[in-house]
């Protein structure tokens, strides 16, 4: 507990900030770091990419806990989830401020006219209540409802990967990798819930899904 609080968590926190710090350095061309000829595109896509990665990392925590029986994964889950939210917000802010130059009319047109932006927007909106109820106090207060609410992470992750898939011009290899990893992670949960009962233990002692 202490080691995790005073050592592991701060280390992981700093590591999770890494991509953002790198982008910040690159955006100002410090120490020879460059984001290439189209830095706005690079900022936009790198943040979106990390948002998805953090969503998938968050979804890895439960399977890792089940496999290793270590509690440490559970402790990191909230931080990863909040970093997913952090990178989604950065992605969205860069889209509005740098990519669309604050032309809110154009942004609104994008949201209503372009399905891949619509679903990306929806994923972002759904993430807000999750981030807002991420504290231990909220978790206690909401009890079972908290668990229900936070199952939204599944549709959010699906919408996020779908948004990426639809947005790429032609080369779908990377969104395909995301989709495969997500399918595994969701498949694991389905399997846990509906696994064949042949060898299962009596219902009373089955762990909760």
């Amino acid at each position, binding site marked *: 507990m202490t080691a995790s609080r005073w050592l592991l968590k701060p280390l992981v926190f700093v590591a999770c900030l890494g991509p953002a710090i790198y982008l910040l350095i690159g955006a100002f061309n410090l120490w020879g770091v460059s984001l290439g000829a189209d830095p706005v595109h690079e900022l936009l896509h790198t943040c979106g990419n990390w948002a998805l990665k953090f969503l998938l990392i968050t979804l890895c925590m439960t399977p890792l806990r089940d496999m290793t029986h270590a509690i440490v994964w559970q402790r990191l889950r909230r931080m990863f989830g909040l970093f997913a939210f952090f990178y989604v917000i950065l992605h969205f802010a860069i889209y509005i401020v740098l*990519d669309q130059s604050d*032309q809110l009319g154009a942004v609104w047109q994008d949201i209503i006219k372009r399905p891949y932006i619509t679903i990306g927007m929806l994923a972002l909106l759904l993430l807000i209540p999750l981030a807002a109820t991420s504290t231990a106090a909220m978790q206690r207060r909401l009890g079972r409802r908290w668990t229900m609410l936070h199952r939204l992470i599944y549709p959010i992750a699906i919408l996020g990967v779908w948004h990426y898939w639809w947005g790429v011009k032609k080369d779908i290899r990377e969104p395909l990798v995301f989709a495969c990893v997500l399918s595994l992670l969701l498949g694991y949960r389905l399997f846990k819930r509906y696994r064949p009962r042949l060898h299962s233990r009596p219902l009373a002692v089955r762990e909760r899904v």
Partner: protein
Amino acid sequence: MRKFAQYSPLCNPSDITPEHKFLSRRALIAGGMGFAAAQVLGFHRRALAQGAGGALMFTRNAKYTVAEAPNSFKDISTYNNYYEFGTGKSDPSENAQQFHTRPWSVTVEGESEIKGTFTLEDILKPHPLEERIYRMRCVEAWSMIVPWVGFPLSDLLKRFKPTSKAKFVQFTTLLDPKQMPGERGSVLNWPYSEGLRIDEAMHPLTLMTVGLYGKVLPNQNGAPLRLIVPWKYGFKGIKAINRIKFIERMPETTWAESAPSEYGFYANVNPAVDHPRWSQATERHIGGSLFDQRRPTLPFNGYDKEVASLYTGMNLQKFF
């Protein structure tokens, strides 16, 4: 491979005359610069034989310029869409360095009197080079300004004497998966091919391009021979051309074939026709500051005065 030297219609004595004219024209230019004409020609050929980075002799065509400064050589040569060398923007500059652009040949076929396979040197020999500064608008809604070096495509096509059946021209990129790693995958249908209506191909703005910033084209920009059609989206500018075919019917083109609802044969820059997944009304100009505003995209990329008449009476919403 057949060379021009063995190919009578292009190499009979009367055809040498244009080269004399060419020589004397070069001599005038060169005279002003203190070179002898022979040296200039030799220089020109040597540079082209060298491959990427060799200096070219050219004149600046002041008729084709843009008020704003061109993008940096670095931006133009590291931010490329050239899927034969990878789908990332920096992949071509990283993966095309070992690409062999010499020796090179171009096959001409279809509805023309003169056909055959010609060496790059034979293709280029009679054409004085000029520099033109053009706007470049990518279908992905970004833009640049680029100082190309080349010669009018029409001058080249006329040498092959297209027949009355030649309504379209089709261009094909080299198919060589050993050298072009992207061609080992199936992200597009290889080899890349593009096409123009014959009047578009013969339009004076259409440039057969061999250089950038006064030097032989970097491999990642389409060496040794690429097309530039400045009023159309960048993907019409096919790179590493090794086949030119005159045909009667509109050819399939790679991007239009891969996603017909998103990319058309004409691909004229048109702010009024959105790509289904993004707006074409504005563009991000490469090379500015992070907080630069998007710019309005111009009809025909700003070349409407020159080319709009090619499309009179056509529904450009339908023929996008």
